[in-house]
């Protein structure tokens, strides 16, 4: 095949231009750290990275939801702990009140304490989240669940929070756990009954509340156990989400980011090829000049 000088120069120029493009592309990868910045760079890598990013966003959303629920359970636990303390105190006062050494006046004084403690318990039962939602109201969460008399006006609904596309965990308990709904006692109305017995100096009725108060302490403890169980599940979920997020970040990184060592090596190779191409071009031009 006849090869002209111009053709040789064209080929050498083409090789140099292509070498320069490779060096520019490799340098861009090394400096930006990104191998894929748009779908056409590597469609399958782009799709894999975008799917992983979307999954990570969902996980992040779910983590925020779980964290919010976890914070709320902390509030609920503190409220239940407060109610539990109140019941224990009221039970101690009731035991004192039953004692024959106390008279009506003494019991009236104790009744005042019980009344104050009951207000505290009602306040704790009407605990609210930062957005104003009542945390122990079930799904009737925009109204206070415990009336001034301690009657429960909420419902027994609980709320699940999605932890993934297919699963969810229970993230609330309702104030119904403090009522007789499931074979327990009506905890706060019981306090009112203690108050009434003390206020009316009815020691028999007061004695009758002692066992129920003991049950109420257990009932609140049981509710706290449920809350603790949910908190543990939520904590585990946050932990699992953290690991999943890390794994997804690795997937994204592997798909679209450059391996710095490989990229540096590619840049070195491309630079060397360009240098060779330039040397060939200059030799060729010198040769043609001599001719």
């Amino acid at each position, binding site marked *: 095949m*006849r*090869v002209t000088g111009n053709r040789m120069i064209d080929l050498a120029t083409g090789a140099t231009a292509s070498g320069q493009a490779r060096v520019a592309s490799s340098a861009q990868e090394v400096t930006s750290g990104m191998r894929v910045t748009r779908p*056409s760079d590597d469609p399958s890598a782009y799709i894999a990275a975008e799917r992983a990013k979307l999954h990570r966003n969902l996980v992040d959303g779910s983590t925020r939801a779980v964290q919010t629920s976890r914070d709320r359970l902390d509030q609920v636990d503190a409220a239940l702990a407060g109610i539990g303390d109140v019941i224990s105190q009221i039970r101690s006062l009731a035991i004192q009140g039953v004692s024959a050494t106390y008279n009506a006046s003494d019991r009236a004084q104790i009744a005042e304490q019980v009344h104050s403690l009951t207000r505290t318990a009602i306040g704790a039962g009407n605990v609210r989240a930062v957005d104003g939602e009542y945390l122990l109201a079930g799904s009737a969460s925009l109204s206070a669940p415990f009336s001034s008399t301690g009657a429960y006006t909420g*419902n027994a609904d609980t*709320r699940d929070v999605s932890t993934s596309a297919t699963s969810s965990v229970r993230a609330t308990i309702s104030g119904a756990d403090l009522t007789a709904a499931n074979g327990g006692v009506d905890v706060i109305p019981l306090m009112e009954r203690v108050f009434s017995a003390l206020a009316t100096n009815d020691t028999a009725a007061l004695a009758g509340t002692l066992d129920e108060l003991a049950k109420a302490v257990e009932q609140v403890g049981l509710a706290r156990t449920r809350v603790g169980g949910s908190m543990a599940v939520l904590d585990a979920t946050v932990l699992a989400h953290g690991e999943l997020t890390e794994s997804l970040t690795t997937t994204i990184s592997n798909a679209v980011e450059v391996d710095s060592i490989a990229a540096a090596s590619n840049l070195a190779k491309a630079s060397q090829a360009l240098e060779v191409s330039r040397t060939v071009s200059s030799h060729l031009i010198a040769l043609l000049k001599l001719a």
Partner: protein
Amino acid sequence: MSNLLSLLSLGSNAIQAQNTGLSIATNNVANVNTRGYSRQRVDLHALMGAPLVGGVTAGSPERLQDNLLAGRIRTAGGSLSMSTAFHQALLDVESRMTSSGPTIHEQLGKLAARMTELTATPTDTITRDTVISAARDVNSGIRRRAAELDTAQEEANARIQEKAAQVSTLAIRLSQTNLQVQKSGDGALRDERDRIANQLSELTGGTARIDGDGHMRFVLDGGAMLVDGNNAAALRPILDPATGDQRLEVVAGTLRRDVTANITRGSIGADLQVRDSVIVKARDDLDQLAFDISSAYNTAHRANAGLDGVSGRNMFTQPTQVAGAAKAMALDPALDADPNVLATAAPGGAVGDNAGAKALLTVASGNVATGGKTLVGAALDIVSSIGIAASEAKSDIYRDTLFHENLAGLRDSLSGVDIQEELSNLARFEHATSAMTRFVATVDGLLGELINRL
């Protein structure tokens, strides 16, 4: 005496022949860097004379060029031009769908994440606001991308219009060059004609042929004749009122022929394919996505109740048809005005119930889009399919460049000027001219001597 005169004549002819060779070689060297130039060659023929005197004469200069190869180069040029322009246009569409802010799939992903948060705090005003804000972003994102596709379509139409005008101008030049070639047959004119034909092929992907009458004819795919000898047709853009697109007609006198569907190669073919296939598909997919988003969310939203306990309300304005759904997409005005309208609770249930929020989350993560895809997946597929097409077009450029380069090498092998070769030719012709000049001088001296002795 008569023999000496014959020798003088032989010498004169020989000098003329060598000078022809010199001028051809010089012309070749002068055009060494002229794009599309085909080198010329002159063959010298020995003259057979009576017993002792012969001589030499130069034949007509021959233009070293292969019409078959030239045709293959034009075809390859049309393909390369097509893949290059197609790749560029696809990158433009891809950029319009992915750059300048979050993509639609990212916005849908954000909405899904906000929906997840909504299941935990369905009554929280801030959470409800962020969900509505994310829905607004999806809505504005889809409308913006739909508008970008419209712009890409307008630009493709403008390019088609501009290139059609170029084709018409080149067709006239080709017909005029045909006429000039017919008159003079000059090699430079033939080269010019080839260059024009190459440009036409790069624009339209059409083919040129040189018939027995020496005329070049340029034919578009599908058979429409653009240049027939000295006659040129025009490639005229005609606005299609139904689509708003430019259609292309070959107009020759009163004859008109729609060739829009026939031009599938060249850079015009690329613009047509981007406009009529890529953008149309992206727009259809976007309309389908907008329709699916609105319909699926509306179904879930209508079935549940807002904080005011009212159910049966849409989340987005319900589109009446798929076509145009993207551009018409809008958040339901009631929801846009009041976040309490967001249906997070079961109808008849308490306000803190999150059944509605969970139903909306099911839409966000479920396979509710056409084709059994998730909404996010369908949105990702729109940009991915454009990216895949652009990536394939890049491979096509590589393939077409290799093929075109190979043919260019073959052409150069036949038609390219090699300076060393031409300098050798110059030296050969120069030496021969010098020798013949001396020969003529010698014969002239002999004749002078003879005349003096007479």
